């Protein structure tokens, strides 16, 4: 299921996850976020950037606890918790944030 954005066609899976990592850009991320009704703030970008850096190294998104810790170190305990991540990404930080970060959807019993 491809989608069109700014005159370019992007290959995506049935749920709108980009198929090619290199297609990702901040503009595309903003576009995907808009289809998810997420408005990107600096805190949203912090999550997306962390996921992308982690993926680069480990070829998978981090487990949620690692992400929470990273947010805690950056923004303090009020924002370093699961509830805050769900505030940012109501459909779930793992799946929705991965989608906006241009990473594949995590598979398995998650």
């Amino acid at each position: 299921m491809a989608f069109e954005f700014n005159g370019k066609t992007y290959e995506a899976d049935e749920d709108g996850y980009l198929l090619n990592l290199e297609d990702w850009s901040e503009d595309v991320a903003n576009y995907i976020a808009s289809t998810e009704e997420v408005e990107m703030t600096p805190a949203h970008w912090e999550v997306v950037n962390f996921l992308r850096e982690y993926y680069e190294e480990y070829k998978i998104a981090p487990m949620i606890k690692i992400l929470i810790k990273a947010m805690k170190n950056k923004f303090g305990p009020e924002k370093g918790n699961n509830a805050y991540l769900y505030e940012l990404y109501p459909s779930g930080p793992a799946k929705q944030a991965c989608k906006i970060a241009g990473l594949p959807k995590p598979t398995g019993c998650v």
Partner: protein
Amino acid sequence: MAKEKIEAPKLTGKIETPRIQPGASLACQHHKANEQFLTGLGYPSSLVENWQEKAIAKMGELLNKYKSLKLYLDICVRCGACADKCQFYLGTGDPKNTPVGRQELFRKVYRRYFTPAGKLLGNLAGAEDFTEEVLKEWYVYFHHCSQCRRCCVACPYGIDTAEISMAAREIMHSIGLGTKYVDEIILKVFNFGNNLGMQPKAIKNSLDFCEDEMKEAYEEKGIMDIDVKIPMDVEGAEVLLVVPSADFFASPHIESLLGYAKVFYQAGISWTLSSYASEAGNFGMFIGSYDGMQKVASRIGQAVRDLKVKRLVIGECGHAYRIAYSFWNTLIGPFDTLDKRYPIPQHICEFTYDLIKRGALRLDKEANDEFVVTYHDSCNIARATRMGDMPGGQFEIPRSIIKACCNKFVDMPQETIRENTFCCGGGAGLLTDEMMDIRIKGAMPRMQALKQVIDSHGVNFFALICAICKAQFTKIFPAYGLSMDMVGGVHQLVSRAIVLGAKE
């Protein structure tokens, strides 16, 4: 696209049998497996041209191979005892989600091509040609079955719908038709050793992080000499622990992993995980693929040999334990090198319970005093396995562990627990976003039973021993207006209660 919000049934505490609504869940369909996944598993890359002929031939092959399948198809008297036992019927009202309705999709094709009456009289004998329409219904409704076998307990003849749905999925795969969710995952296990496709370096990083977290938490309490390790790939360890890979990644799964590690630490028994056999789950069973199941399981047999362990223990994963308990000996056995004094394989709950019974663990129940706990029996463990050496051990042992760790425990109504337990609504390949509608509706009976004990006893912790259950309930609790923080593992409770260090 932002999805429409799915309306969850209202929580009333009552499980009501719905009015029949034909086709109510027909639209809820899995994404299909693409060429890459199908060929990766050795199936045709897409629906083959002569699919009808191939499917009937495959059905004939399975009828010869599995006598039970033929028996189940022949003996149903349509008494209807199963009809209101399926959570997917109770949640949707779709008559093809009753077990007998689901079986009938298979049975009418079987009659048409394999029984004299069906061959001769067709429709009059309840037979039907295997048409494209019928195949479409097979694809929908055999993937709406979570293979939980609740109907099998209600059936006076013991007809096992799970076996029929596995056969249907096997037939569909043989003609190039599968679901993306399950097939992609099986291929990931073939290639990487686990459902998530996690590479050893990523697993190691998660484990290191968990070790640091545990150490920090103890240090915050002023306990400086406790350093719990989560070892991986240690040759010569006493125990190989195989867990669902979600335990390395997801919440609340990870909390149980910490619990296992603390139990091993306190017991002083050397143990290891394996980066090669990094998945307890085995989705091969969901599609009735014996070969797939064997290939997935073979990694565990290999790890037992490579790491030269003496014992094999399974973490909190429902269908994994069914496969371990019922199939491993045939698939990857015999386990001649393992210590015969212990169950082969052993469930982590048996392992922990044994230590509790022997007084080897100190458990501070007050650490869980903020919780009123109930326990959901996972379908595969409840109806396809045994723990310990007494009948019903699979029901008693997890409850005994919880009671040893918590002051406040209450069971949900009897008709919804133990062998009568409901499926979480996410089993056997349903745990994917596009199936959210039926996942939410299929969870209805369990949610109503839970609602009763929330109202009567203030239950606020829902304890589980299955990775699929954990992921499913974490997702659907909010749809029912409940907090996902209520969902957790049995060993999560152990992790909080266990007192580490030398005995006083």
